[in-house]
């Protein structure tokens, strides 16, 4: 598949943008999920009898806060595959 110069520049910019999108988009969910896991550890240490409830709530909360990272993943995939 031969590309002209303009198409090549667009492709390169899209790939660069996908990498930057993924890198920046992973920052927020990483911090947020770590915070949730740490708080859940504190909660389990304080009351071990509620461990299963806390773990369930933690997993749901992490999956919800992960969604911003997933959006950036979807945008990165769109940039890679549709340009």
């Amino acid at each position, binding site marked *: 598949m031969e590309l002209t110069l303009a198409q090549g520049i667009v492709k390169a910019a899209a790939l660069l943008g996908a990498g930057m999108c993924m890198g920046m988009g992973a920052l927020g969910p990483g911090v947020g999920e770590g915070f949730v896991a740490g708080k859940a550890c504190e909660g389990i240490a304080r009351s071990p009898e509620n461990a299963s409830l806390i773990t369930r709530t933690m*997993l749901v909360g992490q999956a919800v806060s992960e*969604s911003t990272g*997933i959006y950036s*993943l*979807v945008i990165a995939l769109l940039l890679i595959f549709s340009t």
Partner: protein
Amino acid sequence: MAQKKNPILMIILIFFLIEISLVFFSKGFNKEMQLGFDKGKFVFRNIESEYNLQHKITEEFQIDEYYKQSGEEPSIYGSNHLYNFFKKVFGQNSAMGTFQLLRMLLLVDILLLFLAILIKKRLLERPSQPQILFEVTYSALEQFVIETLGKEKVNYTPYIVTLFIFIWISNMIGMVPIPGFIEPTRNLNVPLGLGVFAVAIVHITAIKVKGFWGHLKNYVNPVKNPLFLLDIIGEFSKVVSISFRLFGNILGGAIIILVVSSLVSYVVFPVGLTLFFGVFVGTIQAFVFTMLALTYIGVEITE
């Protein structure tokens, strides 16, 4: 019982070790050594494939584009007449993708119906093992429904349980090592349809509880709530958020499994990756989708 399985396990282990040692002697993506049968003889083959990682990704995720580029005949694992029908209806550019998606959806539906009929036929006083599994799943989800919606709204349980089992089977079926088996949730249309249906059920429930005008008053009320347009946009963002979460998790997991297992030449790693992205993430996302649909319904009821 355990004694009888040992020779089979030993044979599998020996094959696995031979395969691993062969993989280390092969070079890179484009060459792979294989163990197998050729014309009735047991041989080691050194295959030189012209496909690289980009081809594999295109074949896995944009199957129509792949067949258009390579010019091959599509390999259909199914009825030819059906494929030709799809080609007529949807055109050449999306026939294979649609065919693959609908085939997997139909398979999941048949599996769901088959399980339901099989369990219902053999209901016992002293439950058998599969019945216990289903009863535990049902009663656990029923408990969530009672906690969220209250005791009189327990008739939402069948919808919630069906949603959970459907999404769970959809996420798990991609792990079956048969060519052409993909997760139906990998295509955006399936999660989007489920999300639209969930939000529609939320609004039908709200209309049932508050009445049509009572429900409309929450949205179009410029005196009390000047930013009512944002609320209407918020309803659409509910659909987008609930469906893109499922879609992105499953698609991202599939791409990571493919890329990382190509990098390590398919040694050991893919098993762990499949365990994490297939079993763990699949179960969690099915659960999260169900819980969010339940929470959206609960917000409208308790207000």
